């Protein structure tokens, strides 16, 4: 592609996507947007940047106020700038691992708009001075991604080498340093910090690890600019985000929303609630429980959900039917998260196991001690190399506080739920 068709982050007169969905516009799983259709909708992207135009693009991302869409909401421009400043020969890792079992947004994005993801990886590589980008995606979308890469190679579109890597299985496999470890050593376990990945990551090189939705948003910002990006969402949290709506909703699936839409409206995109609902699990399986009436009219944003001690996280909203026991669900998720510990750090390995066993007793109405659970939560929080124990502790703490009445009932020996089988979805383990 010629380098002068696109002079820095200037905004084309009429962006191709003005309102409505920005990421999920054309394709659908099974029929991803082809390179031809992709370039017809969005103009080609400048992928050879001089130092100054790369800095200007990072500045554009900063002005856009884009935050990471993998769950941590770290400012995207700060990560780009720190890798760009690290020196050496950086590499880019597009992280579509999506270990979150109930979430499907990264799989859907990769399966429908692979070129937007690849654009993002290519432009991020240009911004930080990388020549190589690893595209780590769920095995179900590897073929789609590889086809998209082949289309681009045939069109001689990019100067960045793109390598598609099937993601590892497991909840912690999506953690940034675990992805780097997976590519480098075939072991999807987190690493100790320091060193930070931006300084010494993959093969010791400065490494930019971004969620693939973040990269797709970067691809749009590079084309249409910060002002366009900010025309959706809120002042503090601009743009759109992908959400996975699951549980007691009419049509489960992935939708794109403006950040800050009321939770009730977001659920309406899934056809609304299918049965009466008591509570929502927000953010992910390491997110937070909230009572449905408390949250229905709050904006789905970090600011809007802060008052109920929750956040958008990686965009999961799981609705729990009112006739189901929330402690049964919580215990099942806790057991799952305990089993997903990489087993490297003692407090996570032993603590989450102990906590989930005690929670299981509580949920079953057997003798158990919420005080002991709270004590152990304090002993696992912040004590791993990664945030896995912190996230599990957050989810369980929120359950003990939001479902305090149910906890008392269980201690008295009775449960309002009809069965001890959880309704929220769990992953099956792919055979190794």
């Amino acid at each position: 592609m010629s380098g002068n068709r696109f002079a820095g982050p200037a905004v084309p007169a009429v962006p191709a996507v003005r309102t409505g969905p920005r990421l999920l516009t054309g394709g659908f799983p099974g029929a991803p947007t082809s390179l031809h259709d992709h370039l017809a909708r969005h103009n080609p992207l400048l992928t050879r940047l001089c130092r100054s135009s790369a800095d200007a693009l990072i500045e554009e991302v900063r002005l856009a106020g884009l935050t990471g869409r993998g769950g941590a909401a770290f400012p995207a421009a700060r990560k780009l700038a720190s890798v760009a400043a690290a020196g050496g020969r950086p590499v880019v890792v597009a992280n579509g691992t999506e270990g979150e079992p109930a979430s499907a947004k990264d799989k859907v994005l990769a399966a429908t708009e692979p070129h937007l993801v690849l654009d993002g990886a290519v432009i991020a590589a240009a911004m930080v001075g990388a020549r190589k980008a690893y595209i780590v995606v769920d095995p179900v979308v590897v073929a789609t991604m590889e086809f998209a890469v082949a289309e681009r190679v045939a069109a001689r579109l990019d100067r960045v080498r793109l390598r598609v890597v099937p993601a590892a299985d497991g909840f912690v496999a999506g953690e940034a340093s675990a992805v780097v470890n997976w590519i480098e050593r075939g072991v999807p376990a987190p690493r100790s910090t320091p060193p930070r990945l931006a300084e010494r990551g993959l093969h010791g090189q400065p490494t930019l690890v971004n969620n693939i939705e973040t990269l797709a948003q970067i691809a749009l910002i590079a084309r249409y600019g910060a002002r366009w990006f900010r025309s959706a969402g809120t002042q503090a949290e601009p743009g759109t985000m992908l959400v996975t709506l699951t549980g007691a909703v009419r049509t489960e699936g992935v939708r794109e929303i403006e950040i800050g839409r009321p939770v009730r409206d977001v659920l309406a995109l899934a056809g609304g609630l299918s049965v009466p609902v008591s509570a929502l699990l927000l953010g992910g399986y390491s997110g937070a429980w909230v009572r449905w009436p408390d949250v229905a009219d709050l904006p789905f944003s970090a600011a809007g959900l802060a008052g109920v001690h929750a956040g958008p996280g990686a965009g999961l909203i799981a609705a729990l039917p009112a006739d189901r026991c929330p402690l049964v669900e919580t215990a099942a998720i806790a057991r799952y998260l305990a089993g997903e510990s990489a087993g490297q750090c003692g407090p996570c390995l032993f603590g989450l196991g102990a906590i989930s066993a005690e929670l299981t007793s509580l949920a079953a109405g057997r003798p158990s001690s919420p005080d002991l659970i709270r004590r152990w939560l304090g002993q696992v929080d912040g004590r791993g190399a990664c945030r896995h124990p912190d996230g599990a502790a957050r989810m369980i703490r929120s359950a003990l506080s939001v479902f305090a009445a149910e906890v008392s009932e269980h201690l008295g020996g009775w449960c309002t739920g009809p069965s001890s089988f959880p309704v929220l979805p769990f992953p099956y383990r792919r055979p190794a």
Partner: protein
Amino acid sequence: MMSRAARGAPGGRPPGLALLTVDPIACDGRGLCAEIAPELVTLDDWGYPIVPAQPVPPRWLTHAREAVRLCPKLALKLE
């Protein structure tokens, strides 16, 4: 979350004050640190060390250095 000991900020600390940190992957819970520096290190219910989030007070620095030096897994750091 504030107790995340491994994430001590290097900047802004007065000179001479050092933070005791543990690499949770390297740590095997042998517990020597809690024997050597009980003023600083307590053990959780599974025998893994909990280190203070605050810098080590000067009067305990000798104990802290000894604990770092004798950790069989080289998991403790004073920085």
